[in-house]
């Protein structure tokens, strides 16, 4: 019996582990390896440069720029969809007629690809006939032709709004799932005790939504770190690198300039950031478990 179990464990896990090992784990380790070389992507001959690529990170002003943009991008990508998603979830959960339809409408953008979302928003920001400028002219009464995506001051924020439009629905459904887990009786008791709606949200609902909030925030961070497609489509990191994030910078260095060694070093930094976030996430989940079990 014991031998049989061992056999099946190995037999069933062999293929998944092989595929995952060869195509995910091994490349991950190789990234570390290449980050110490000056490989250009094609030439089989390359040299070890020690910590040269990592030293270069500190003198590369484009890297510093990308770090700042990534921080802005991540902060906005956490705050905007989380708050909007929570608001929508609370509104929909208040037994409004047509709740299911509202849910679908707000959730719909998540099944569109980043390419299509990017394209839609490029049109909204289009200077001559885009929705935004058209609406602004209607309000101000004079023709507006501001090129939102072509100005360094607004490009990154314009993409953040498009991104939030897509991600809000995800936050909303997770909060909705969390809200259905809150017992009715509890809220009714609060109601009978004469609490105000605002007090119930603040002192009862929000604390009970903590597990959902941890998940939403973690997902926002992780998805925003992965966010590349939509930036590539909408601005390509420009103008003048004003919307360059780490993922974008890594792509440009590796596949535009063929600095694969340096690109690997950037991806190692990206990995370390993701790793620390995952670490915090699992610890938070554990804490949440301890509170609720």
């Amino acid at each position, binding site marked *: 019996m014991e031998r049989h179990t061992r056999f099946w464990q190995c037999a069933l896990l062999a293929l998944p582990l092989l595929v995952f090992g060869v195509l995910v784990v091994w490349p991950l380790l190789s990234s570390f390896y290449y980050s110490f070389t000056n490989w250009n992507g094609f030439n089989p001959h390359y040299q070890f440069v020690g910590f040269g690529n990592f030293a270069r990170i500190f003198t590369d002003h484009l890297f510093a720029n990308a770090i700042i943009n990534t921080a802005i991008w991540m902060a906005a990508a956490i705050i905007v969809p989380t708050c909007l998603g929570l608001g929508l979830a609370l509104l929909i959960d208040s037994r409004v007629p047509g709740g299911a339809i509202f849910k679908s409408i707000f959730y719909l953008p998540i099944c569109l690809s980043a390419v299509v979302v990017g394209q839609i928003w490029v049109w909204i920001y289009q200077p001559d*006939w885009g929705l935004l400028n058209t609406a602004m002219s209607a309000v101000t009464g004079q023709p507006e032709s501001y090129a939102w995506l072509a100005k360094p001051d607004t490009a990154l924020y314009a993409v953040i709004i498009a991104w939030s439009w897509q991600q809000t629905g995800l936050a909303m459904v997770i909060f909705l799932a969390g809200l259905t887990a809150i017992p009715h009786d509890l809220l009714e008791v609060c109601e009978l005790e004469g609490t105000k709606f605002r007090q119930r949200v603040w002192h009862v609902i929000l604390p009970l939504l903590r597990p959902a909030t941890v998940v939403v925030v973690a997902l926002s961070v992780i998805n925003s770190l992965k966010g590349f497609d939509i930036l590539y489509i909408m601005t390509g990191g420009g103008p003048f690198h004003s919307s360059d994030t780490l993922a974008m910078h890594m792509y440009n260095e590796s596949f535009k300039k063929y600095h694969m060694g340096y690109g690997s070093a950037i991806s190692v930094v990206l990995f370390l950031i993701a790793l620390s976030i995952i670490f915090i996430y699992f610890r938070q989940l554990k804490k949440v478990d301890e509170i609720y079990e």
Partner: protein
Amino acid sequence: MSSVALARADEREFNPWPAVIFVGLVVLAVLFLAPTIGVLLSSLKTTKEISLGELWSLPHSLYLDNYVKILSDPAVHTYLINTALVAAPATAASIALGILAGYVFSKLPFPGSDLLFLAIVSGMFFPPQVILIPLFRLFNGLGLIDTLWPMIFVHTAMGIPICTLLMRNFFATVPSALREAAILEGANEWQVITKVALPLSLPAVAVLATLQFTWIWNDFLWPLIFTHSDAMRTIMLGLVFLKGQYSVAWGVQGALSLVASLPTLLVFLFFQRYFIKGMTMGAVKG
């Protein structure tokens, strides 16, 4: 739900809040739908109408030339077929591998299996850029660059974490007594999976199929890295490429965006329940 109480307050005095909430949600819903409706409207208009600033008005007549142009373009056919050729096998393969691994982690645990499970699941969280360069080198070395194979392989591998996670959690709800009974009857583990566990887990498979198909269909990064000839492009890459060709033909671009999104929109429409369940199930527990 907070409004059980709200409704009760209604009986005593007039409560404006439900109406205010409803109107607020309608306004937000319109704002949320506006971008999508804009594309739909533009796809039904001529370039001239759009550039005259008439994008946001209702079309005067049903103008379908943009769709005719897109659907008769052989390049678009190639892109759609390529995407299906990547999405279908990669979706199936990642789910199959997830079933195998999920079964072991839930029904045949061994010392350290929890740790191994955690390591696999954490693969879900890493930005794909981290493994981009070595994979490019690997497939370049194998002479597979500019074929569909790298996309199939990579999507299969990248799907393993979420598939393993969901299948393990689902198999955990299948009573172990069922497995033990089948084993006593002389079945082996493979028969338990295919005859007992899998038929019970079809809902989880449906959830994964909708999620994986949507993600793979919508992917842009891997085809961008692994292909360069037109014959190997997937639809999302083709969309960007054709943007140059139809550079100011916004109506054509709009029609193309909708055609490219149609499969995932249909999946969403028909399997919305599974889709949302997958998103929340995958998210809620690590």
